[in-house]
């Protein structure tokens, strides 16, 4: 498991109050019965942890899997380390 994946699983588990063992890369937030307000909290915790800004509707957390979330975060982190990312307000 990549460290990003591990961190995201831990955040989802904490924010939604679900057993991390139940989360897989293929599960959607819908499968995990995560409500929209929990989803925005998960996004916030991920953004705050990595100091990144996830785009508003990409990935679409309602229909896409946790894999989409992990990949979006890994992509943003890669962009950030290559210096391509726009400065975020936290920076």
């Amino acid at each position, binding site marked *: 498991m990549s460290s990003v994946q591990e961190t995201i699983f831990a955040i989802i588990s904490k924010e939604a109050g679900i057993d991390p063992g139940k989360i897989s890369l293929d599960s959607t937030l819908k499968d995990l019965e995560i*409500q*929209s*307000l929990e989803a*925005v909290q998960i*996004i*916030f915790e991920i953004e705050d942890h990595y100091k990144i*800004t996830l785009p*508003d*509707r990409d990935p679409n957390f309602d229909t896409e899997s946790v894999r989409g979330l992990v990949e979006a975060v890994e992509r943003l982190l890669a962009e950030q380390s290559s210096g391509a990312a726009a400065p975020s*307000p936290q920076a």
Partner: protein
Amino acid sequence: MRRVAITGMGAICALGHDAAATWAAMCAGRSAIGPISNIPTELLNIKVAAEVRGFDPLAHFDSRRLVLLDRVSQFALIAAREAVAQSGLDFGSDMRGERTACIIGTGIGGENSHNEQSSRFYGDKNPRLHPLTIVRVMANAPACHLGMEFGLTGPSFAVVSACASANHAMAQAFEMVRSGKVDFAVTGGTEACITVPTIKAWEAMRVTADDTCRPFCKQRRGMVLGEGAGVFVFEEYEHALARGATILAEFAGAGMSADAGDIVLPSETGAAKALSAALADAGLNKDDVGYINAHGTGTPANDPTESKAIRRVFGAHAGALCVSSTKSMHGHALGAAGAIELVAAIGALRDGIIPPTANFIDVDPECDLDYVPNVAREKPVRAALSNSFAFGGLNAVVAITRAS
């Protein structure tokens, strides 16, 4: 039971600085949503809002008065001056002020002052805050300033229920006039919370659109913040008739309910309950109603839920209703929304013109009513409803009828 007339109307919002300009813009289907110009935008991802533009507070208040007034109170006073002037009532004579309630809704209160002083404290590390911070920030300040300006010494307070604040406030004022507790009320809602931190907080919730507000459309991307105020004069009906006042409409009833479910997700049954209660309170049949000014925020959750609630209550008549969201033009003014939208409902009754839902592209298949896309429509209307459904699941629907 006593009846309640609306004899004065005032408004200020992105569409105009008075009720007449606001109504004219609504009829023209003109959206006032645009790039944010009153505050710095470099930290914002959402760079659009429906701001009150070209507004010079010093044109309305001298500097010594202004130091007491957050923008939220300035808006309320400007709308109230228009409403009171139109009513022709002098609250200073015949002990009228004593028989007048002043009930003003706001979702947030003095957010601009709160933000300025927080920024001074945390940002500038300046521990000395303005001595009038408390009285500018408090959510009851707009009601207090109206009371002081017009000498209203009856029941006066603020009503806070997020996006339903104005409708809840007007419902309360209506009950007081109807019951005989007072003979007049100055009531409505006001909001001024377009600040950088407030927008950042909305951004974090991921319910605001970055382009514009397209209620009931497949392409909608969320709500757009607005600001402003709407204030009305309510008066016991026979009193208004006896003095020959122009009765803009009859405030016929109100229906309120709480979902007691989710803090953000709206409930079809909760909304339907408030709609049914408003009809019953006003003594209206379903087919009396010709127009509903929808809550219509343009969020994914609100629009289908509200449409289903309307269909649930109105059944076969739902298809004959005109349902439009004027938030597509003046944005979502939160605690002022219901008051600005009552201007639309009154206009529909008086002029027989249904204001459109602007920025309309393709209808969402989940929304199956007549949303009056983009262009106003001529249609005589005898009764209208105006919906407000707040975060927290608090619902308030008001019913007005044409003056008879």
